């Protein structure tokens, strides 16, 4: 489903990713671990179409997204990608319901029942009208998970989703991600520096200094 072929990425003089080649199958849950600054998030941004490689190709479902225009990448993210961030990144001035609904609206669809169903699935019934600042960290991340899945993307990209949470809450979140993604055979790429989270993944890749270790 996702193929990276000899991908290099530079930020200025810094060589962040070096000759990365990897493949991720449909429905596969892959975790990429590495220390801070190893290039994990950069890899995620490339797969998510937020950036382009300086060398090499990235192919998703036979589409070479590395040569997409900005407009194409926007549509690619809108339809195929669901992001989950470390710091939740909910829109602060809209409610839980509206945050989850946002990807549907961006796709010019609207399915309030679907939104409500996801709110229940993530255990936030009764919180539909709350604003993000009224929720705990764990609750906010549940909203973020629902938002990442509501528009039925093929790929979920999770960047340190438990980084701002305590260990128990983190476990619960990971369980939720695993459960919801495997239900509909989503391809999940999880980036984390916490090795113990790899147990949720089908496969773990290590990255160090921009190179994928076997």
């Amino acid at each position, binding site marked *: 489903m996702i193929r990276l072929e000899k991908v290099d990425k530079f930020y200025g003089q810094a060589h962040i990713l070096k000759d990365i080649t990897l493949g991720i199958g449909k429905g596969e849950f892959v975790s990429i671990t590495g220390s*801070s*600054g190893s290039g*994990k*998030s950069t890899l995620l*941004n490339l797969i*998510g179409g*937020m*950036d382009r490689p300086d060398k090499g190709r990235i192919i998703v479902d036979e589409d070479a997204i590395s040569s997409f225009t*900005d*407009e194409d990448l*926007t*549509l*690619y*993210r*809108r*339809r195929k*990608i669901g*992001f989950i*961030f*470390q*710091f939740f*990144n*909910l*829109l*602060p*001035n*809209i409610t839980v319901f*509206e945050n989850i*609904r*946002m*990807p549907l*609206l*961006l*796709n*010019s669809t*609207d399915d309030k029942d679907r939104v409500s169903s996801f709110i229940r699935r993530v255990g936030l019934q009764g919180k539909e009208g709350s*604003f*993000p*600042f009224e929720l705990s960290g764990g609750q906010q991340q549940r909203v973020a998970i629902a*938002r990442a899945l509501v528009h039925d993307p093929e790929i979920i990209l999770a*960047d*340190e989703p438990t*980084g701002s949470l305590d260990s128990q809450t983190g476990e619960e979140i990971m369980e939720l991600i695993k459960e919801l993604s495997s239900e509909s055979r989503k391809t999940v790429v999880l980036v984390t520096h916490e090795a113990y989270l790899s147990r949720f993944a089908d496969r773990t890749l290590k990255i160090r200094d921009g190179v994928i270790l076997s």
Partner: protein
Amino acid sequence: MTFLHLVRLIIFRNLRREWFLTVLSVVGVALGIGLFIGVKVASDRAVSSFESDIRGMNTAMNFEIVDSSGIDFPESAYRTVLDMVDNCLPVLRAVGHMQAANETITIEGIYTARLMSLIRPVSRQPYDLERFLREPDGVMISKQLAEALSLKKGEKVTALVYDREYSLSIVDVIDEPSLPAKIVLMDIGNFQDYFQKTGYLSRIDLDADAVTAQSVMAALPPHLALVSKEQSLQDRKALLKSFRYNLQFVSLIAILVGLFLLYNTVFLSVIKRRTEIGILRGLGVHRMTIVLLFLSHGLLIGALGSVAGVVFGQVAASFSALAVERTISTIYSPIAISGTLITVKDILLAFGLGIAVSLGASALPAYEASKVRPSETSREGSFEGRYLKYVGLLAAAGLASITFGVIISWYDYNAMPFDFPFLAYAGILCMIAGFGLASPFFLSNVLRLIRLPAEKTFAATGQIAINDMQGNVYRFSVALMSVAVSCALIIALLTLIFSFRGSLRSWIRQNINADVYVKPSSCSSNFCFFPLSPELVELVSGFEEVDAVDRFRTLHIDFFGKKVVAGFGDMQLQKRYRGGHQELAPEEAGQDKSVGISSYLGFRHSLKIGDTVDIRTPRGSEQFVVRDVFSSYSTTAGFIYLDRQWLKEFWSLDDATQVALYLREGSDISRFIGRLKEAVRGRYAVDVMNNDELRKRVLSIFDKTFAITYAIEAISIAVSLIGVVNTLLTFVLERKREISVIRYLGGSWQQITRVLVLSAGVVGIGGIVLGSFMGLAMSVIFITVINKISFGWEIQFRIPYLYLSGVTAVLFLTTLLSGLIPARVARRVDPKRFISFE
């Protein structure tokens, strides 16, 4: 030292980082202050011109003797005065117009021997006194005039003086700072001969104590008045007072809009910096230090705005001076404003204003900053949430303020406790403040109303825009008020101008009825006070096409202790040509001792038709019955109208300052005018206009006098748009993470642009709706209260719907487009920077 460090780290760095926002805020403050200073400088210079005009050449003199009607008087009076006072000087004065340079000049005939010792020529060579006395057209001009028109000693110029064109030889150029700026001096004897004023004087200047002055006054004939120079100046200043204050107030509104802008900037800075504030508080920084930090922010922008305001003010002063000069010359008397350089006092005033505006605008945000709790800083979106509960209370306070404003304006209209409508202006400010307090409530409800349609129409962008505004209702209501104040100003001023124009048109239709009008070319005011040559009047009247001639004369007379303009015309003739050729009753024909008064005088002195008034004439006080109270827009000093027979009987005058000609039926008016102009060519300098031309000219003068208000409007619009851009730009800068999230979710730059443009649009529409209510209220107060108390003009209230629709549409579109600027800034946001936290 710690505080200065904090200022450098938190405030300076912020100002530098967000340089565009800083520049916007500085420009907004500068425009308001600059406009205010520019208008002030122009009107101050007008008063200075009056002052140097009154002092004239004889700066040491403290009294002047003039004819109470403002006309030239026999010079025999000078002998009487000279017998009693050593230090006195005769003066003849005329106003001239140099057509080529379009310049108004004052020509003074002076007692050469006495005065020449007081002045020195530019050339530092002894002036050519012999040539000055010998040449009948020899003049000396001021250095300022010479420099302004690039004139030199030895050159010849032409000027229109009275009703002719005259040539003047420049004998020398005078360098004397105390002289009026555009003065031309002539020996008094030469003046009398050259301009055919033999045996006459315009005034006698004298230096005397109060007791001597009393004795002199007692010895003078009754038509002459002895007035202190100071009193003359105060009287002239009083005439200008309403005009000046009204102009100044309108320019004050531009400062008000700048104040909103600065408040917005500091308020948004507080919101952006709340994390830093929380950390500082956590580190032990006092609340007062936080307050002072943000006051410094405001003061810095205010100081920079003041500096820029001084520069802009200097430019504005030059343009304002032209407009003010034109208006005063038209409505009052010709003046020449020069030297529009801003003084040290004006600069200090600009800085004082800048500091006052900064402190006023940043006080509340600074106080709010000191109350930020550390726990708030990590919960985005909670800052304004805390204050949402006060929206209703603020709305109630706003309503109370608006009501109070209406009440005091109404009180001013009925009771008129002051000569100037201070209470009405205070009422307007209260209303603006009231609308400001109620604006968050208004915006909340507008958002509630449009939420569903916006989401249905614009989907995600609609939802984001409406919700972002709802979550930041206070900051967006500040932007809304910027638009509202601008819109209100447009509506109020345009309604005033349109209503005024409509009333003026009606007045023109009723009063400008003759076929042809003749007046001296040198006279640029609405009323001329020097007579046309009798030969000219006879020549004009002698044409076979002429059926009737209305010889019109204007004088200044005392009316209830103040100088007003008196017009003398043929009442019977006018009413005949206006209302048909039927016979009129004596009172209708003005044959009884009747007078018509302008509605301003009726209002000021509670006079109505049938009342009796005393009018001081050279033959003593005479009683006249008020037969008519009419609208008059030609002057703000008050105008009365009498039949010509009284001019002859009580003032012993039978001349005319302007003539109106009624032609026989079937006459070719254009051909007649052609023949008339041919007959006077080379002999007299007069303007000959047909009815249509005079009507257009009157309207054109009206349009030009309002030119300065258009400039004020344009600047206010610019400042309010800056306010909208400022709000949205700060919104973008603060919402970089949110914009990045939208990009990660698959939102396009077009959609983000739409959010910003939609926000700008809501602010625009909301501002225009609120501004419409404000503007309507303001225009009612301007027309019915302020105008009436200040100028006494009767204006029929008329709303120019079509015109206003067009202008507000332009304002809306411009507001909408102002959302594009922040959208461009948003495009430069790199989403990866604000989402990755490695």
